[in-house]
């Protein structure tokens, strides 16, 4: 069964002068356990796509199915990581991680150990009693990732989760995300505007055109895992990045 199946999905935003096409007739599917990156220039509807999948936004046309069932609203078998950590400042790190458990009434006690295990998996052991404002940006985003994993969702939706971090922290986070993914075997849809990040992390890279977002290319990345940061210097890696960027140069602009 496919984890994500999208058929001819379109999204229009009504504005004062006509409507803006954010997504146009996108079709693709993602298999169970696959890591798929979606890349495209700013304003190509990447975030719209993620919000549709998260059930926060309704598509204008077309169909989106998660694990066989059409999306009618927010669901409990997905975890979402946003561009900013979106932590609640009045909750401690542990309480932030347990937020999905509280909302879905899954029993705090039963998930306490899992929360601690996940926190140490992302390198935040001993920080559970701290508050978000006491943590750096990278640490806050790790808390957000832990929170997305706590209710053991089958699928992770990530919307440029490392976009706000500096380059060094970002590479470190990429490594850690890969480690968590290899450990937990989730289906991941990862939105980014960095070609290098997409190639480094994903099994497949979906390339979108500038507005309206259409699917331009579907690239399989056949680099063995676990991938170390050094692979970014390999000609193989360079070739993937180069071919994707070549597609953009005709169409629009993205970061390296």
């Amino acid at each position, binding site marked *: 069964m496919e984890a994500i199946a999208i058929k001819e999905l379109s999204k229009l935003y009504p504005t004062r002068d006509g409507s803006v096409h954010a997504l146009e007739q996108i079709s693709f599917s993602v298999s169970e356990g696959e890591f798929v990156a979606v890349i495209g220039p700013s304003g190509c509807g990447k975030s719209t796509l993620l*919000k549709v999948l*998260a*059930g*926060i936004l309704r598509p204008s046309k077309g169909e989106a199915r998660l694990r066989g069932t059409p999306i009618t*609203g*927010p*669901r*409990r078998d*997905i975890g*979402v990581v*946003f561009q*900013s950590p*979106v932590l*609640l*400042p*009045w909750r401690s790190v542990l309480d932030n991680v347990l*937020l*999905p458990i*509280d*909302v*879905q009434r899954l029993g705090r006690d039963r998930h306490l150990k899992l929360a601690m295990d996940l926190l140490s998996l992302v390198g935040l052991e001993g920080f559970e009693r701290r*508050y978000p*404002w006491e943590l750096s940006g990278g640490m806050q985003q790790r808390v957000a990732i832990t929170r997305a994993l706590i209710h053991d969702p089958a699928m992770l939706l990530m919307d440029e989760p490392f976009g706000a971090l500096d380059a060094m922290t970002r590479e470190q986070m990429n490594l850690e995300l890969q480690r968590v993914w290899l450990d937990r075997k989730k289906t991941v849809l990862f939105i980014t505007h960095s070609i290098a990040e997409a190639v480094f992390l994903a099994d497949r890279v979906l390339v979108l055109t500038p507005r309206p977002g259409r699917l331009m290319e579907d690239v399989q990345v056949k680099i063995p895992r676990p991938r170390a940061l050094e692979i970014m210097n390999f000609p193989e890696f360079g070739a993937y990045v180069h071919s994707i960027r070549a597609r953009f140069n005709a169409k629009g602009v993205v970061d390296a």
Partner: protein
Amino acid sequence: MKSMRDIALTILLFCASVLAWEGIVRILEVPTFIFPAPSKVAAALWNGFASGLYQKHLSHTLLETLLGFLLGSALGFFLGAAVALNRYVEYFFYPYIVMFQSLPKVALAPLIVVWFGLGLKSQVVNAALVAFFPLLVNTMVGLKSADEDRVNLMRSLAASDSQIFWMLRLPNALPFVMAGLDVAMIFALIGAIVAEFVGARAGLGMLIQSMNFNMDVSGQFSVLLILSIVGLLLNRCILLIRRRILFWDPAEKERLDQERIAL
């Protein structure tokens, strides 16, 4: 942080100004019924408390203020929440709220005395009326100010509207509510005193009024001193609660730092 030297300097400056006040009043022979010397004010303060007069009126004013504060802020909070959460309530009530808010509430004091009499009730109502608006407005704004990303997060977790209210909107509104309480406390004191001016059987405001008729200016000074101390203490109480509840609020931490510098 304050050093020992700063503390000593502060005390010295205070003593010097009191002495200067005393000296100037004596040298220029200013009549006591115009501007009393600090020694006269201190004597009035002593006599007032020794006779038990001040305690009686002080407790009356405190009771009015606290009851008015509780009543006014509770009503303000609940109506503010209703306006923020329900479009229809907002649509029908908001114009009246705006209209009523631009009215100086203390101007209603004479009417309230007509309606509720000279007893405790009329002062409590007046204090509540003045304390009501800061809570109403702040609760309204606070509940509507939840960050869109946070709302999206809660939605993505399939949270119900009531869960979004209890887990996100309400805690998010607390800094606004606490700021409203801060103002409401002082406003309640003002409301109570004004109501006592207009007509009351007891209270510090009524005491000031009657001292004024008797040209007891030292007495009035001593009561003003009590009132400013009461105001300060009430404000401190709110501040302490606020710090405990809003330990996570960045604005609160900033305020704390500023106060440290100011001290």
